[in-house]
Each structure stands twice: as structure tokens, then as C-alpha cells.
């Protein structure tokens, strides 16, 4: 039996997948290249959302410019995260890097609370809802989906065609040998962190159109973003993309039949089970 609502759910899930894929893109890059989990990644996205919100709603700067500023701010933050926190810890146990960025998560979340309070804000811009054959589809999500695809292609071209991109790929393959080949690993890491931050900023631009901004928003996106990266296989962009759609479908369809939380429960449970079956990710190669 054909169910138009189910189809609507599936399409919306697909579009949600675009948002999640975009979120995962930058984290995946950092994860794959530097082998560090930025557990505060979603908080950087939140920082970008607040930047855009204040520039646009309080200072009346056009949304496009505000968005660009948001991307720039988060890119600088990404640079600083590596420069100030990760680089002193590069030689230590990986878990220390994770915990230090965990500290940054606490810091950003509560610092924003301190500055702006806990209330929900939104930029007050309502994008139209498109209607196809009796199905309602959010334009903002469609936009996010398209941007995610474009962003992934652009990142792919950057990694494949430019000198810096080649250096990044090389260092992700063997971080010790590349240093012997004369690559300045520090520079590459900083560039990667800035690009990763910029991608978080891009995600912030699209999330700000759909969601209310509040200091704890990172906690609702963060965990799922890590799961996507790991499920897709670390540093595997296409894997991350596929994983994002698997997750978003599970969440959307689970939410359609039961409740949204059940969708999340199932998605996280699938993640745990997949870790046991294929720890290298769904598209990863066994090393």
C-alpha cells in the first residue's frame, strides 16, 4: 500500500541526511587527517550559529555576509583549537586530546550560557515549505542537502587537485614518513583544522535556518555526528555520506512509526552493533 506520509518522511529523512552529512564532513576531515576526536565539534557549530544570529538579527548585517562571517569565525576557532589545545597534546595518549576538547565543550557551552542566557533564539526567518504531490518538504532542508553535496564535491576537488590537498591526503596515510619527505606537518594540521572549522561554520549557516539556537544545541547534534564519522569509516568521506543517510533514515522512519527518541535509540544501537561487526566502517577496508 502506498503511503504518501511515509514517502514524505523518507524524503525529509534524506534531506536531514544532507544536514548530518555536512556536519560530519569537517569532523571526518580532522578525524581522518590528525586522528583526533574533537568532541567539541558541535559546539563550534553552535558558536557559528550565535555569530550569525547576532550579526544578522542584532546588527542588521545581510544574512549572506553574516553567514560568511560565521564561517570565518569558526574557521579561526578551528585553527585556535589545534594551535592552543591539540598541538601541545599531539604526542600524548589519544584519549587526552579527546578529554581536552571535552573541556572545551564544557567551556564553550557554559560561556555562551553566561553571555547570552539559556533562552532559545532564532533568526526569525521562515523559509517557505515546498509542496509536491501533497507532500511537504522544508526548503531549508533542501538547501542544506544541496550545500552538503556541493561541499563534499568541493572538498573532494580540493583534496585531489591542490598541493595542500595532496599534502593533507599524504599525511593522513602516513604521518611519520611525510615529515621525512619534507612536509611541514604542523602547517598541514593547522590548515586541516581551519578547513574543518570552516565546514563547521558552513553547517552552522544551514542549521541556523532550521533550528532554534540555544547553548545546549551541540549536545543534540554532537554524538550523532561522531557516530556517523565512525560508522562511515574514519576519513572516508563517501562512507560518512552514506552513514549520514542511513542514520537519518533510521531516525526519520523510526520517528514516523514510533517517536523521535525511538529513532535515535535505534540509530545509536545500530552504531554500537556496527562497531562490533565492522569497526573499520561500512565502506572501510580492513587494514
Amino acid at each position: 500500500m502506498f503511503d504518501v506520509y511515509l514517502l514524505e518522511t523518507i524524503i525529509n529523512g534524506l534531506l536531514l541526511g544532507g544536514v548530518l552529512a555536512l556536519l560530519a564532513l569537517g569532523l571526518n576531515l580532522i578525524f581522518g587527517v590528525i586522528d583526533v576526536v574533537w568532541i567539541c565539534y558541535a559546539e563550534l557549530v553552535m558558536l557559528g550559529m550565535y555569530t550569525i544570529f547576532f550579526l544578522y538579527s542584532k546588527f542588521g548585517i545581510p544574512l549572506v555576509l553574516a553567514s560568511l562571517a560565521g564561517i570565518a569565525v569558526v574557521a579561526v576557532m578551528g585553527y585556535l583549537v589545534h594551535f592552543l589545545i591539540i598541538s601541545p597534546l599531539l604526542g600524548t595518549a589519544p584519549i587526552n586530546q579527546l578529554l581536552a576538547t571535552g573541556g572545551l565543550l564544557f567551556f564553550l557551552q557554559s560561556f555562551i550560557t553566561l553571555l547570552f542566557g539559556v533562552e532559545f533564539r532564532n533568526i526569525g526567518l521562515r523559509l517557505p515549505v515546498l509542496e509536491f504531490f501533497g507532500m511537504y518538504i522544508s526548503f531549508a532542508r533542501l538547501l542544506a542537502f544541496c550545500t552538503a553535496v556541493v561541499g563534499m564535491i568541493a572538498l573532494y576537488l580540493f583534496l585531489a587537485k591542490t598541493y595542500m590537498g595532496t599534502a593533507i591526503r599524504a599525511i593522513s596515510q602516513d604521518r611519520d614518513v611525510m615529515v621525512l619527505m619534507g612536509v611541514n606537518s604542523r602547517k598541514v594540521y593547522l590548515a586541516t583544522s581551519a578547513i574543518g572549522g570552516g565546514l563547521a561554520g558552513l553547517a552552522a549557516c544551514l542549521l541556523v535556518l532550521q533550528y532554534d539556537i540555544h547553548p545546549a544545541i551541540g549536545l543534540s547534534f554532537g554524538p550523532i555526528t561522531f557516530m556517523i564519522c565512525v560508522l562511515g569509516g574514519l576519513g572516508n568521506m563517501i562512507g560518512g555520506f552514506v552513514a549520514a543517510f542511513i542514520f537519518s533514515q533510521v531516525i526519520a522512519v523510526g520517528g514516523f512509526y514510533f517517536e523521535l527518541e525511538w529513532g535515535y535509540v535505534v540509530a545509536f544501537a545500530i552504531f554500537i552493533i556496527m562497531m562490533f561487526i565492522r569497526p573499520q566502517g561500512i565502506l572501510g577496508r580492513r587494514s
Partner: protein
Amino acid sequence: MNRRVTFLIGALLLAALPYMGVPQYYLHVIILILIWSFIYTAWSLMGRFGLVSLGHGAFLGVGAYAVAMLWNYLALTPWIGIPLALLFSLFLAILIGYPCFKFRITGHYFALVTLALSEVISMLIMALRNSTGGSLGFTPNRFGEGTSIYALQFGQKETFYWIALVVWIAGIWIWKRVDVGMERHALDAISEDEDAAASVGIHVTRQKLRITIISAVMTAFGGILYGQYQMYINPQTLSGVGVSLQIVFAVVAGGMYVAFGPTVGAVITISLAEFLRVLIGTAMVGLDNTIYGLMLILFIIFLPQGILGAIMEKGSRKKALRNLATAVSLNIK
């Protein structure tokens, strides 16, 4: 022998604390510190061997909710509910731990799997909001006047203080037992190099699973205690990523590798939070966590052994230097 006497006097002083005219509010803060110290100690049992779990919120939640729900819906006394809840958390620990260790998921992969577990539990509490109250939280039914051994509810703060004190001492005792046991050396070896440890005959999976079960069951018990004391539980304070990270932070701050490190962490974090709350009030919500976050980063970079760890290390180094100096001077003579 001398140490024993010191410990005994310390324990007696602690036990007599409610008779010294400590105001109710301070007693409340001390009870919280004791309960959380126990939970942090439980976490550090795993953490010190490189098993960094971000899923301990799950065990807190499972313990507290199981006991409270059995009490409210089935009128099952906590005397039966607590063992059931502990059994349940034990199964959960095996369910997540066994495959993790069997398939050798370590380092930040282990952290992420456990993170997913804590999210599963917190989402489950939300999803089952018809019976758990969702994010509004859950209040166990009062039994009679409010004090009952049958329901393990005590209106008097003093009673809870003694319970928490005994539990905390038990936690330190377990930590010490693990510290002096043979298993500790096996686990140390595992955290250095699993293959090498396995090659000398250590059963890696069994060792890791055992310490995980001890830690998880203790954490669940801490969650139950917290629920019985506060008579109100909610998924934000007892499950999910937030509390799991908070546990990690306090332990790292206090010191992961010394017995009283987690306790020092609890004293610092809870008294800082309470101090700021009293001093500044609610005008600056989030100040305490801002400071914690900054401290966590600085600790990991500059003082990874924690406050107490650093102090004790310094002390032992001084002692070692003194010993060396006497040895050298004896040799010269």
C-alpha cells in the same frame, strides 16, 4: 600500625561530624560530595587503566530509574529493587563490555561506543516518558512519614550522611583492593600493550570485563543512592553525555591514579559549584562550568596526573631524593 590509628581517628571524626553542629546546608553539600566521590572512584577504577568510558551516565540512570520505577509501579521495596537494579547494570556492562573487549575496541573508539550507550539510555528515558516522566524527571513515592527502613527513605540528613560515608569508605576500600591485587599488574600491562600482555598469559578480555563490571555496578549503586537521597531523578543529571563528561572531568582534576584523587575532584568541583551559586546566585548561570571547562583543558595539558596526583608525586620524589642523599652519604663514609 600508625597509619591504621590515623585512619581510625579520621573515620571517627567523619562519623561524628553531624554532632558538631554542622548546618543542614553544609551537611547536604558533604553528602553530595560523598555520593559523587563514590561514583568518581568507580569510574577511576576503569579510567586509570586506559579504559576511558563516556558511558557511565548510562549506569547511573539505569540504577536510579530501575529502583525508583520498581518502587512506584510494583511497590517493590528497594531491598529487592537495589539487587535487581545492580544485576541489571551488571548485564548491561557485560552486554557492552564483552563485545568491545572481544573485538578489541580501544582508545577513542571505546569512548565513542560508551558515549553511544549513554545516549541510548538517555533517549530511552525520554522515549518512555509515559512511565519515566521524560525530561521532567521522576519522583519516587514517599512512604508514610518520609522515614522508613522498608522503603530506604530517610527524612533526616544525618542518616543519609552516615550511609553515604559508609558507601564512600567502601568505595575507597575497593579501590585499594584493586590497587594491591595481582589483577592490577595485569591491567597495567594490558593498558600498555594488549598483545604483549596476552603473550605472557593474561586473559585480556576477562580482566577488562571484570574491572568494567565492578566499576559499572558501583556506578549504578551511586546512582541509586543519589536517587534515594534527592527523591528526584531526571535524565539530565543521571544519564547522557553531560554527566558522563562531568565524571571524567572531576576524576582528571583530582587525580586518576591515587586512591583519594576522585574524592579531591568531587570536593573541588562540587564546592566550587556551590560556592559560586551562593556567592553570585543564579545571575551568572554557567560560570562554574566555564571554569571547569577551562580547568579541564589546562589540567590535561599541564597536569595530567591531577591535583592530588601531582602533590603526592612531589612528596614521593622528595622522599626518594632524601633516601638517595642518605645512601650516597653513607657510601662516602
